[in-house]
């Protein structure tokens, strides 16, 4: 019995650490609607700074002072980031801020290694909380008891802050309806800055408090960020109490789950999230999102098919791309194939995001399923390559059909997180089912047949498929189905009022996007000759998201440019420098500030302006830019 009590307390201690970080994220999202990908980075910097300070300042006062000081210092960094970076892009399309915080995270991961060195750092134990307390023969670390107490205390302070102060009232009001708050004359700028500072402070405090029990290292951020998102979503976005309950739920399920299924930890949080979101679409304590006032369609230049001149220009670009094998070596051709494959992947997500308004955080699942489909068919059934390429993506299609059915019942960030949960479930199956998928050692030896083996032939294949897919998806945008899908994006209510079965339309779009991603994955398996669980992983999903946002989410096919720019830059930087993350992150942040509508979105806007100011007879100037669509 004593054992179960201690295990329960241990779970509570884990929950307290999780809650601190999650509460900050929840507050930030609730008010600013920023999906703060850098929250883990702030957590990590908090731990690093606290480590440095606790090594220098001694004694109990020095230790606890250092923890608070570190959190304050990071909050200050957060304020800077908010004022310099995020303020410029609050009016960018939804999720665009994700790109900025993603860039920041990349930079921080390299920066901490540059500043603090590559070794794992082990900080001091907390003065007064070094040992353990005996509980009927079981030991409970006294620091765990401290954390268990701290969780509710922080919850209480936050509750008081939100219920009993004017600032808290404003924050709650903004969480519910920030346009209304702005209309009532509240200085939104400072409200956002202060909320961001509080959120970052909590993240850094969570990180600093890990010092006595964890090692400080440069991958801490990734370890926590996804889990924290999950906790926030399970609890309900913007709900502090929800975050607390979710943290306790997840930690306790883990603490007791491993007693029965020792391998459960790898997937547990995602299973819980999937179940919670299917049963309660807005999390445990969340409220339905108010219908958006601004329809996205109004902020965009009206979409139109390419004019015949533009078509010719796009064709010319394709022909030029097709001549690459005449002058490029094998390496460039293989890179070209990889970029073409990522164009397929990015346009498939772009279709879902820009036309359907459904941002998936787990799109890599269908890419990876396509790759695994090919690998199964080629290695187990021994089918010829062309058959594998045709049938492999069907696995992506089936996955999208099953998961899409559940996912499209939700919208916004909840939709995104449910897709993430599904992707992680698929990932963990690929990772754990060693006898079939080879686990993390993957499936090797999926090489193309002779006719496609040469880099130039494979390049032409990939380029051809990428062009076909892009054209097909474009055609779909301007088909009746595409119009119906855009209608569901712009106003779900009106769509249903005119007799369109919105969920079915969205589901169909999801399946189309998933299948297309599967086609990309199928080609990718042959390009690399092997398939790994990585191909379904979070980082690939994030890559796709970045490509779409970089290209411009409000364009028809901006993802093509986004994919080319991001992938080419990524490959080139990784090859040139060990600090590729630092440079790439800096570049992304620069783009975010200079092109707040994405690269193509910005070019289109410039072209639009020029068209308006110049006489209608000379639209020639705008052409080359628009063909880039």
């Amino acid at each position, binding site marked *: 019995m004593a054992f179960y009590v201690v295990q329960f307390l241990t779970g509570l201690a884990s929950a307290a650490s999780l809650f601190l970080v999650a509460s900050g994220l929840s507050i930030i999202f609730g008010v600013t609607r920023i999906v703060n990908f850098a929250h883990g980075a702030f957590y990590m910097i908090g731990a690093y700074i606290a480590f440095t300070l606790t090594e220098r300042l001694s004694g109990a006062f020095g230790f606890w002072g250092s923890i608070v000081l570190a959190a304050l210092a990071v909050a200050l960094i957060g304020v800077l980031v908010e004022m310099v970076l995020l303020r410029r892009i609050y009016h960018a399309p939804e999720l665009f801020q994700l790109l900025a915080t993603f860039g920041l995270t990349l930079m921080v991961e390299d920066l901490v290694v540059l500043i603090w060195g590559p*070794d*794992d750092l082990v900080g001091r134990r907390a003065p007064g909380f070094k040992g353990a307390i005996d509980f009927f023969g*079981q030991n409970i670390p006294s620091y765990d008891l401290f954390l268990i107490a701290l969780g509710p205390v922080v919850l209480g302070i936050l509750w008081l802050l939100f219920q009993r102060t004017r600032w808290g009232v404003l924050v709650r009001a903004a969480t519910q309806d920030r346009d209304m708050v702005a209309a009532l004359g509240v200085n939104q700028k400072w409200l956002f800055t202060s909320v961001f500072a509080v959120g970052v402070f909590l993240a850094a405090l969570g990180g600093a408090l890990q010092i006595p029990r964890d090692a400080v290292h440069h991958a801490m951020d990734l370890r926590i960020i996804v889990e924290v998102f999950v906790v926030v979503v399970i609890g309900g976005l913007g709900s502090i109490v929800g975050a607390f309950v979710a943290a306790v739920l997840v930690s306790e399920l883990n603490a007791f789950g491993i007693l029965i299924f020792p391998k459960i930890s790898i997937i547990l949080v995602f299973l819980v999230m999937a179940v919670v979101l299917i049963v309660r679409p807005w999390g445990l304590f969340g409220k339905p999102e108010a219908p958006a006032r601004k329809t996205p369609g109004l902020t965009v230049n009206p979409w139109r098919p390419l004019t015949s001149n533009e078509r010719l220009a796009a064709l010319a670009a394709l022909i030029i791309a097709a001549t690459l094998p005449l002058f490029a070596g*094998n390496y*460039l051709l293989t890179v070209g194939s990889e970029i073409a494959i990522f164009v397929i992947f990015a346009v498939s997500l772009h279709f879902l995001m820009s036309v359907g308004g459904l941002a998936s955080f787990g799109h890599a699942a269908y890419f990876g399923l396509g790759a695994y489909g090919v690998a199964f068919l080629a290695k187990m059934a021994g089918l010829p390559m062309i058959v594998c390429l045709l049938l492999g993506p069907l696995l992506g299609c089936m996955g999208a059909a099953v998961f899409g059915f559940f996912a499209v019942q939700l919208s916004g960030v909840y939709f995104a997180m449910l897709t993430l949960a599904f992707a992680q479930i698929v990932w963990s199956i690929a990772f754990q089912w060693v006898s079939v998928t080879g686990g993390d*050692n993957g499936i090797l030896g999926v090489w193309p047949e002779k006719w496609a083996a040469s880099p130039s032939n494979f390049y032409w294949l990939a380029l051809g498929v990428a062009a076909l897919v892009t054209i097909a998806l474009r055609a779909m945008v301007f088909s009746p189905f595409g119009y119906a899908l855009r209608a569901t994006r712009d106003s779900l209510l009106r769509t249903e009022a005119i007799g369109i079965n919105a969920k079915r339309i969205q589901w169909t779009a999801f399946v189309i996007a998933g299948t297309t991603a599967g086609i990309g994955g199928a080609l*990718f398996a042959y390009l690399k000759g092997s398939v790994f669980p*990585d191909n379904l992983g979070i980082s690939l999903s994030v890559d796709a998201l970045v490509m779409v946002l970089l290209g411009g989410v409000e364009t028809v096919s901006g993802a093509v440019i986004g994919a080319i720019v991001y992938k080419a830059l990524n490959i080139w930087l990784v090859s040139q420098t060990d600090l590729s993350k630092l440079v790439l992150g800096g570049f992304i942040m620069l783009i975010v500030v200079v092109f707040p509508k994405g690269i193509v979105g910005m070019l289109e806007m410039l072209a639009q302006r020029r068209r308006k100011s110049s006489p209608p007879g000379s639209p020639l100037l705008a052409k080359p830019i628009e063909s880039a669509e």
Partner: protein
Amino acid sequence: MQAKNYFVGAAFALLAGGMAHSAVAQDIKIGEINSYSLLPAFTEPYRKGWQLAVEEVNAAGGINGKKLVVISKDDGGKPADAQTAANELVSSEGVAMLTGTFLSNIGLAVSDFANQKKVFFLAAEPLTDAITWSKGNKYTFRLRPSNYMQAAMLVEAASKLPAKRWATIAPNYEYGQSAVAVFKKLMSEKRPDIQWVDEQWPPQGKIDAGPVVQAVAAANPEAILNVTFGADLVKLVREGNTRGLFKGREVVSFLTGEPEYLDPLKDETPEGWIVTGYPWYSIKTPEHDAFLKAYQAKYNDYPRLGSIVGYQTIKSAAAILAKAGSSDPEKLIAAAEGLSVPSPFGEITFRKIDHQSTLGAYVGKTALKDGKGVMVDSSYKKGADYLPGDAEVEKLRPKD
């Protein structure tokens, strides 16, 4: 990062469409890939090691009079990116062979690439048994003692312990799974009386140490096998110390004696664990003294196990290239099979039968000395003594 100047040339090659690679035909180039950005704690000393080796090789006249150049790429910890890097090294840099890699899945990806493109590959770090056995191929050689070998070394010591009730804690991925599987198999062969009472599989890099420690303690084992390393190990040790998990229990642990993983533990190092590792401070052989002196003179730092691996990878590669006198992969394979080369741990041989080197490891016990973790009572275990018999290896390895 000193090698970066060279990459200006690589950038040019990229722009020129990969046609510039005949520019420095006088040099012999080795392409090296590792997870520099993902695992800097291991790969930084590793890089220092191979840079020292390059310097030594060239100071001694290079390879048959030609200068040795190592072109190094980061794989970011992703198999797909490692293949892109391998392709760049082979197709546009024209390297004579590939070396490096840390993670097992990346090692396997590059090994498969080497097999497909018919390129010689000397895997440095990956521990998976698959790379030389179940998924072995004729183009791939491996330097480090494999999972099987390290398990066999530990079993030798562990089977002498009186403990009968054993629990295991291992990261939930291939390395942890196969380490536990081999250890259990070899252990149960020697000691049929042993019971396996609990196993814990925390996700790699994400251990929730408190509950794991509690769960293991609840099974009340007499001995524990640990396979976690890095930050997970730190958390496990800290929780285990506070909760008294290791008190009165024997612990056998993979890799924990390596300075990379032992040093961060500082004064929290648990005492008396049986570990594999690298006690650079207590190895007194002329080969190692020479290496240690050269390393400390160049870097003013002590070597980690990564340094040895990096150093020996390039030393072995240079010896293979020198013996082959050509960069033809078939000749390189012929030269490498059965080749014996000196190493800081004594002479090692690349076995013909499975392309595994006989580099060994040190087995000893952890101890605390002046607030720091050290390995004591350590002895070198020759790799050759801990490999299965030839007949069994032939069954494990597909025919080339």
